Every structure is written in C-alpha cells, then in structure tokens.
C-alpha cells in the first residue's frame, strides 16, 4: 500500500549538538506507529519538525525530505501541517482554559449559519453555537466520554482535558495523520485503556497514528510497528510479529536493565508521623479527614489515580497548600503552615513538578544541590559575623557536589553545568542529591520517575532505597506507577476520592491493588 507519510534522512542540529541523524520513517494509512526512545533521544524534535513548530525554523531548520501522500511537502508552520491533515495531541495541553469544551473542540472549524457564511464569508460569519455544541457532544460520545460541553476547560481534571484535546483533533474532517505525544502520561489505567481503544477505532477508519509513550506495554499492545530512537539515530525497528519487551528496551538504552527489587519488611513499631483528621485544600488533589500512622524507617507508597489526592499529603505537611487537622511528629504537634519549621524538624519534600518547583533550571548543578542545605542548615558556609551574609565555601561545596555526581551517576560536563541542559533523569538525580544533603528524617517524594527513561528510573529507585536503608530516612512516595511502588515500598496507601481507601502490604495481589485504585474491593466482586 502507498505510504501516507515518508520521512527521508531527516537531520537536525542545535548549535553544535546533532539531535537527529538521518532518520527515515514510513507510515501507511491506518497504521499505528510507536515511536520510543529515552529522554533526549530526539522524539520531540522529530514531532516538532513534522508539526512545523516555529522552534525548528528559528534554530536553523533541518535537512532531509518529507513526503506526504506521495508528494514532497514543506511544512513551514503548524498551519501547513494542519492543512495537510496532520493533527497533534500535545503532552502539555494546547487548550484555552477560559473557553468552554465545545469552543475548544470546534476551534478553527466552527459551524456557522449558512446565510451569514454566504454573505460575509467564513471568517466573519456568525457562529452557530447550538450546532457546535451538538458537534462537540457527538465527538465526545464517540470517544465514550461524558462532559458537559458548557464547562470551562480550567475546571476540568487532567484526564478529561486529555480527551478534549483528542476530540479537537478528531473533529477535523480531513484528518489523515494523528500524532500523540505521551497521551497516557496523565491518565490512570482505566482511562489509558479507553484511549488506546479509541486509537484502534481511528486506525480502523484509516487514520495513521504516531504514538509516543514511555509505557512500553501499551505501545506493544496497540502498535503495528515500532521505531526506536537512540541518540538521534534509529536504533531498532520492530513489527508486530517480532515484539519483545526485552529487545525493545535494550535497543532503547543500548544495554539491558536490571530491575530494583526490595522485600517488604515489617515496620519498626515506632510511629514517627501521625495524621489526625488531616485535610488539605490542594486544587484538583484535595484530601479530607485523613488518619494515618507512619512508622519510623519505612518506605510507604501512596497510590491513586490523578485527582484522588495522592499528592496532597506531602504538600499539606510542608505548608505548600493550606491544611487543617493535626499532625504529630515524634509525638509532638507541628504547625503545618510553617515550611521553615517543618524543614528544621527534618521533613523534606520533592514535589511532583520537577521543572517548575524542584529545580533552579538556570543555575548550576552545584547551586541546586547545596541550595536547601545552605539556606536552612547553614552548611557549606564560611564564618562571618552576620549569619545571612556568610560566603559560600566553594571548596567544600565543589567537593561535595563532585562526590554526589559520582555516586548518583549524574551525566554532565561538570558541576558548573546548568541544570536546564540535563535530561529528565539526571535532573531528578540532582533533586535527590539536594534532599540527601539535608539528611531529612522524613522525605516526601512525588512522582519520582515521571517522564524518566527506564535506565535512569532504576538508579533513582535504588537511590531511594539507599537513602532509606543507610540514612534511616522514612520515605513517603506518591506515584502513579504501581509496579514501582510494589517494588520498593513496605506498605501502599490507596487514595480514592480524597480519602484513604485501603492500606495494603506491598506484596499484595496486583489485581487487588488495581481494583482498589478504582474504588473496588476484591471481595465485592
């Protein structure tokens, strides 16, 4: 069959750095093509080229040919791409928050009143709101999602936004190629499966799909072909018959991976942190009346779908979001509104949005690692009469940073490199290093492995175990990766609708865990 999209020897460089080296790709109509690779392998750059994003041309364009439907095309901007029939579902949503669902779905292809269309032309024709809402509802029904089309985007949860974004692309009549960048990253298991089903339907209708995802299992379940990128080169091509998880993973990272596994232990019996009727008002992630005892020295996982409150515990305890109720640390009450006091007690939080709240992207690795310790514990400082005007002791700081870089295997030029230039996995290692300097008694970590490739993931999980075993730090991990929680935790707390639904042992039945996430107990079935 004639291919819908053919990429020939696409190369792209940013300054001295070659991010794509002569990548070729061919996709037939109706094919679901998986595109995988570690962070920084060049997936996003390839997608940006395909969708004509301005950053590609501002940084000097690319070389190579793109054939669409058999014709050689030049995609200079996103409008060109859309005109060809290419749709893209972005990882960070491209939705307008203060417009409603129907307006967002039909944007650019609004239904208008016909007579006004004839008299004034399409651009000035009056929009037929009713028809648009009907159209939006029709599309959403096809997707199997029920949302009031009058609702504003900003009031929707993350997973619903994902479906609205998809609906907008499907709404285009002449859609021939749909690009999805990590569409399931923000979704829970159930929603992710529904989304994959939708992709199957679209593929049956003859639309070609490029799917980028970190979740190898789902890529393997829906894709017809897989292309693996490594360091800007195609390092492997697999077709449905030859899918093999180990081989694919090996071709992604260039070596095989060993998974971290710890055995669940019995707790020490001494509580270190007690929550009594604890509530946190965190937008989209609120929790209510939580009662929980956390034992000294354990690793406790908090699982739950997006929006069910798994992130609120850490944020509330450290005073990032307002909370009520009581928290006892070592049997004494602590004031959760006071972040500084919490830090002084030895509590520390690595928040879920690494790039937004976890790092100073334009500062060096060293400055990032020592920052909290300098500010809160006066470490790495030279003596001076005024405590806040003490100079940073560069020598001890550099020595410490070098040691951390070596221990955590942070891939970088040197300790002065800006954190912005590191890959996601290495950025997370920098965050961990910063927590380690603080020598916290209790460490809250949220989504430690989100958006991180499989090689770096294991190092981070191993390091969490090291912090726990060697420093005796109690760790509270909130994560949507059940498999990882099962591997490193002693107990797992399941959050459902802002409340604790169950506390399970880490070696429980995976089915029980999956059911609990959606608010069901196995004995209810």
């Amino acid at each position, binding site marked *: 069959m004639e291919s819908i999209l053919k990429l020939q020897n696409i190369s792209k460089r940013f*300054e001295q750095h070659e991010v794509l080296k002569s990548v070729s790709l061919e996709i037939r109509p109706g094919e679901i093509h998986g595109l995988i690779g570690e962070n920084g392998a060049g997936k996003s750059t390839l997608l940006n080229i395909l969708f004509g994003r*301005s*950053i590609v041309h*501002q*940084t*000097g364009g690319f070389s190579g040919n793109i054939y669409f439907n058999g014709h050689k095309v030049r995609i200079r901007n996103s409008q060109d791409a859309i005109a060809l029939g290419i749709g893209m579902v972005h990882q960070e949503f491209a939705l307008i928050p203060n417009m409603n669902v129907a307006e967002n779905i039909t944007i650019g292809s609004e239904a208008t009143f016909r007579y006004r269309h004839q008299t004034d032309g399409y651009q000035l024709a009056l929009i037929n709101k009713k028809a648009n809402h009907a159209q939006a509802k029709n599309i959403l029904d096809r997707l199997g999602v029920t949302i009031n089309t009058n609702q504003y985007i900003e009031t929707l949860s993350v997973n619903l936004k994902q479906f609205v974004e998809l609906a907008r692309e499907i709404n285009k009549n002449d859609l021939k190629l749909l690009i999805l960048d990590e569409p399931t990253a923000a979704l829970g298991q159930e929603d992710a499966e529904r989304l994959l089903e939708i992709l199957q339907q679209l593929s049956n209708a003859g639309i070609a799909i490029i799917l980028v995802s970190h979740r190898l299992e789902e890529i393997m379940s829906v894709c017809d072909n897989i292309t693996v990128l490594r360091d800007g080169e195609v390092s492997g091509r697999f077709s449905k018959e030859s899918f093999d998880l180990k081989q694919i993973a090996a071709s992604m990272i260039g070596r095989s991976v060993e998974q971290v596994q710890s055995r669940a232990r019995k707790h020490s019996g001494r509580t270190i942190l007690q929550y009594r009727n604890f509530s946190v008002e965190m937008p989209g992630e609120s929790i209510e009346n939580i009662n929980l005892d956390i034992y000294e020295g354990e690793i406790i996982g908090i699982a739950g779908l997006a929006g069910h409150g798994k992130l609120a515990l850490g944020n509330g305890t*450290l005073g*990032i979001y307002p909370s009520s109720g009581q928290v006892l640390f070592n049997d004494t009450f602590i004031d959760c509104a006071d*972040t*500084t006091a*919490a*830090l*002084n007690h030895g509590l520390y*939080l690595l*928040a879920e949005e690494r790039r*937004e*709240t*976890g*790092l*100073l*992207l*334009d*500062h060096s690795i060293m*400055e990032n690692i020592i*920052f*909290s310790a*300098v*500010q*809160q514990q*006066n470490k790495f*400082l030279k003596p*001076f009469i005024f*405590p*806040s*005007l*003490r*100079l*940073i002791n560069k020598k001890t700081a550099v020595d410490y940073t070098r040691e951390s870089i070596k221990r955590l295997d942070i891939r970088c030029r040197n300790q002065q490199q800006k954190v912005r230039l590191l890959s996601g996995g290495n950025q997370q290692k920098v965050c961990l290093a910063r927590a380690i300097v603080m020598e916290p008694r209790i460490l809250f970590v949220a989504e430690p492995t989100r958006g991180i490739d499989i090689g770096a993931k294991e190092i981070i999980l191993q390091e969490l175990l090291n912090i726990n075993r060697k420093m005796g730090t109690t760790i509270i991990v909130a994560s949507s990766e059940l498999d990882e929680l099962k591997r490193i935790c002693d107990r797992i707390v399941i959050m459902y609708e802002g409340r604790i639904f169950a506390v399970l042992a880490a070696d429980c039945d995976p089915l029980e865990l999956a059911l609990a996430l959606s608010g069901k107990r196995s004995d209810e079935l």
Partner: protein
Amino acid sequence: MIKGKQHTAQLIILFFLVLMIILAWYAGLSTSRLINDSLIRVFMNGVLVLSLLPMLNAGAGINYGLPVGIQAGLLGMCTAVNFGCQGLLGFTAALLLSAFFAVLFGYVYALILNHLKGREEIAGIFIGFSTVYLMCFFWATAPYSNPAMLWPIGGQGLRLTIGLQDYFFKVLNHLWVINIGHFILPLGMGLFFVCLCFLTYLFFKTKLGTAINAVGENPAFCKLSGINIDRTRTMAIILSTVLAALGICVYAQSFGFIELYEAPLMMAFPAASAILIGGSKGASTSILQVILGTFLFQSVYVYTGPVANTLLMPEVSEIVRVIMVNGIILYALIYAGRREQA
C-alpha cells in the same frame, strides 16, 4: 552564528562606537579628551547602573522606580550640605545619610512592590513619577536653613539646583588622579566604583545573595526550601535603593550640582538602557554586564554629542541621545519577547 545573534545589540553599539571615533577624528576633535570624558562618565553613572542589579536578580525586573533611590540620595546630600559638610569627610557623611534614607525609602518601596509581583516594572515607573512630585512639596517647604540652598528671595524652599562648589565638588574626581600624557585617570573615583562592584559581587556569593538569585528564578522552588520570599525581595529592593542613593551622590559630586524637583524624573531610563546594552536578560545579570553596558552606553553618549554638533547642526546631539536611550530599551523589549516565543 547563533552566538552572534545573542550579542547583536552589543555588536551594533560597538560598530556605532567605532564609527563615532572615526568621525570624531575626521571632525578634528580631540580623541584623548573624549576618551577621558567617557571614562569619567562611566565612573559617574556606573553606580546608578549597578543599582539595578539586585532587583533584576530578585526577579523584580528593571528598576524603573530608580527615582525613589535617587531622591533618598538627594535628601542625604541636602542634609549634609545643610550642616556644611565639606571635603571628602563631608562627602562620606552625605553617603552615610543617603544610605540611611534609602533604607527607609526602599522598605516602603518594597512593601508596595511585594503587592505587585510580576508587574514591578510598570509599577516602578509610576511609583517613580509620583514620588518625584510628592518630593517637590518637600523640597519647597523643607526646613533647611543653609542660605546657599534656599531661594535668595523669601528665604524659604530649596533652589532648583544647589551648587556644591564649597562642599564636596569633585572630591572623588580629584582623589588620586594619575596623569599619563594627555590621558587622566581618576583613580579614586574608579576605585569607588570598582569597590562597590566587588562588594555587590561578593554579596551575591553569600547565603542571602544566593537566596535572592533563586527567588528571582523560581519562587515556588524557594518556598519549598523554606525561604521567606517577601523578605528576600525586600532585602534586594532595599539594596537596589541604597545603591541608587550612593549612585546619585557620586553623580552629583562629579556634576557639581544637586538637582532637585523634577530632575530625577527620567533618570531611570539611561541606566536601564545601559544595563540592557550590557546584555542583561532578566534574572541572571552579572557585574561584568553592568560594567560593559555602562562603558558602551556612556562612550556612545559622549561621542555622539560633539560629533553630531560638529557635523550636523548645533543642539542636535540631545535629540540623537533621546532616540538612542529609548531605542535601546525598545530593542531589548522586542528581543526579550522573541526569546519567550521560542
């Protein structure tokens, strides 16, 4: 090539500067005198430009509210003159008094700006403008008694300009002057500027300094590390205001007059231009950028005047300068906008 793009502004100015030197030479102007003038102007304006740095690094943008600090400096100098402080010691007294008033002014200024996070630049313009006119009342009714400062008729209210001839006129300019042929190096004034630069550099290596830098880049991150963001920003704003006050003292002793009433109104713009030419890109401006920017801006300023007057027509220089000052700010804004898009 991409590197060249980042420094387009500096390259254009540098090219312009070379052109001006050639033209000056062609017009028969004394180059060594022009170089001397530009050096003095760098030291004279440098501290004012430096004063923008703490607020920039704290994420409060360019301090268009520079008149706030300048008026603290004017108040300090007027008080010193009122008590008849003379010479280097008198100038030191003026500096100390200015710094004292600047701390008070800066604190109030910070209280306002902390309510206006993200809009500091536009707020600064209007805070600057309104305080200038507020202070006009003060200058007109101030209880100063030194007749040299007061209107000769009526004996009440300060004059528009107060001559410093009998007080601390050019005390820094004339401190440790070294003559090398035609070239005169005002070492004392230079050292004063360099010392302040060095102290600011050291400050940003301290605990508080690094906190200010971090707050400028990512307040959410700082909150997680237990930093009081408003307090840190207040410190930066006070430091900016104090430096601005010291800056105007240096400027005034070199200029020879304390200029009151509406004079501080537009003083933020040349300083802003200078730091933008230096290549400042918001929250991570370096001392080197301050020095480079002041040098490029002031040199062009010194050269365009005489050259334009000689080659074109008299008095055209002021027009050229105004176009330059505002054009550079505009260019920097366009450039900043383009970076955000990408």
